[in-house]
């Protein structure tokens, strides 16, 4: 049985973005983006390569300067940092440490570290986790980041292109774990692997030409993500 750690504070606050703009060398990437991301939902941002999906994530995480405001349940980033967990597409890890040691460094509080719970998750074996990270495949690195995310039980989980390079079994595990994480977190994901996200996302956002469009009740129309992509992005609307 998998048990979740309870966060210290109750509630799962929303993210409010107001007039967010970001440019690189006078080239606007995001133009006056305003939106609300809701609690206990998996939000998916689709867009072309270079459309600004990662830039949007960087702004949300405070890794880049931007114009506009972003609040987290009415609070500024500084007040909620410990409740945020991000999984980046390249899964940066300390190559001279083993899996367990990397997990410990990824936790916001070392008391979240629990070897029995990690074993219960069944994502990576004890033997594998004792190995140096250099010997990990991309899929194993992603599983490791997922373990750390689950242990952290964050209020906000931001995942950038996590499904790339994963085999079918791992994708199935990832889908299952994200569904569990959704119960406690606001999740924002980006990627191009539409078949994977199709069944788990609650909200859809389309990023095109610096504008982020919220597609309300996209499921009601019965359209698949790929069709929506074609409709909003590939056609140049």
């Amino acid at each position, binding site marked *: 049985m998998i048990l979740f750690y309870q966060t210290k504070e109750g509630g799962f606050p929303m993210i409010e973005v107001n007039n967010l703009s970001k440019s690189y060398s006078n080239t606007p990437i995001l133009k006056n983006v305003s939106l609300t991301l809701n609690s206990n939902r998996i939000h998916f941002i689709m867009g072309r390569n270079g459309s600004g999906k990662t830039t949007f994530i960087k702004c949300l995480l405070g890794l*880049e300067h931007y114009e506009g405001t972003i609040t987290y349940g009415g609070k500024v980033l500084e007040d909620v940092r410990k409740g945020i967990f991000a999984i980046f597409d390249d899964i940066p890890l300390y190559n001279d*440490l083993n899996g367990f040691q990397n997990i410990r460094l990824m936790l916001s509080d070392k008391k979240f570290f629990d070897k029995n719970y990690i074993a219960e998750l069944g994502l990576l074996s004890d033997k594998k986790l004792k190995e140096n990270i250099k010997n990990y495949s991309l899929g194993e690195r992603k599983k490791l980041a997922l373990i750390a995310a689950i242990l952290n039980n964050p209020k906000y989980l931001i995942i950038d292109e996590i499904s790339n390079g994963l085999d079918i079994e791992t994708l199935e595990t990832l889908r299952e774990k994200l569904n569990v994480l959704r119960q406690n977190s606001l999740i924002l994901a980006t990627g191009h692997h539409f078949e994977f996200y199709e069944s788990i996302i609650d909200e859809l956002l389309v990023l095109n030409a610096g504008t982020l469009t919220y597609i309300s009740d996209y499921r009601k129309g019965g359209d698949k993500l790929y069709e929506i992509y074609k409709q909003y992005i590939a056609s140049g609307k």
Partner: protein
Amino acid sequence: MKSINNILQVANKELYYQWCSKKIAILLFILLFLSIFHLIGLHNRVITSYNRYQRTEMTYRENGIDIVKALEQPNNVYVENNSKITSNPLKDDFISLAIAIQSLKPRNIISNTLEYLVFVFCTLIFGIYAAYVATYDFRFKTYKFVSVGDNQRDIILGKLLSVIITMTGTMVFVLIFTFIGSFIVNPIVVAKVPVKDFTIDIFNYEYGIIPQLFLSFIVILFYVIVGFSIGFILKSMLIPTIGLLLYGLFIPVLGAYDFRNIISYFSHQVFTFTARFVMFKPMPINEVLGILLTLATAVILFVVLFTVAKKRSAYS
């Protein structure tokens, strides 16, 4: 308070990484090696000095000179063309041997270990180590992950604090090790040399061990700040490493207010440099100006460091 807790948390994680990746072990190994090398050097110095004294004494005896009287005579020493000229070679050798014996005594070992380690080795070792700690998150591309959980100021201060803790911890360990080592080496020397025949209380530490430890800490800390700041600003460990090596080992002292001269000036106030390491004679300086210049450099480095961190993208 929240910020202090965050800084301590960052420092804790940094120390965990440095420990698990065996960087602290490597650091300790290097320092212990130098410490053992120092103890062996002190031991060999006693033996060499004793052999030289015996040879000189033999020459005196062969020439019918009274040894006791010769040792009571004054010894005038002066330097000519980089050579030491002495009016009383026997007394000179006697004093050299007495100093070598005294250097190995536990009461003096901490002081001369600091002299030997701090001014050349530790400044370089900890300066480079600080540059490593400042940059390894860039190398592993983990800096963006770290920056999600903590702000730039807390990360920088946490990293710096971890280096200071490592520096203090390893130095204390090495000094205790050398102190204990002197209890082992001393009996070995006593078995080979009649040390009781060569007792002169030469060492006179006007300021005691505390100012020596304090100055050593400040000197290493200065190099830590330099290595850390340059490493972080340039996201490079190589550049501060080359810079510190060139500055420390190859570039001559550039003037009275060159930091090495300032350090030499203050170190001569609290250390005697009568053991294995002799610090060069400094040019005279205005003490207040020397301190202000050092402080100003550290402050400027911090200002640039925090400005760069604030302006630069943390996604790297």
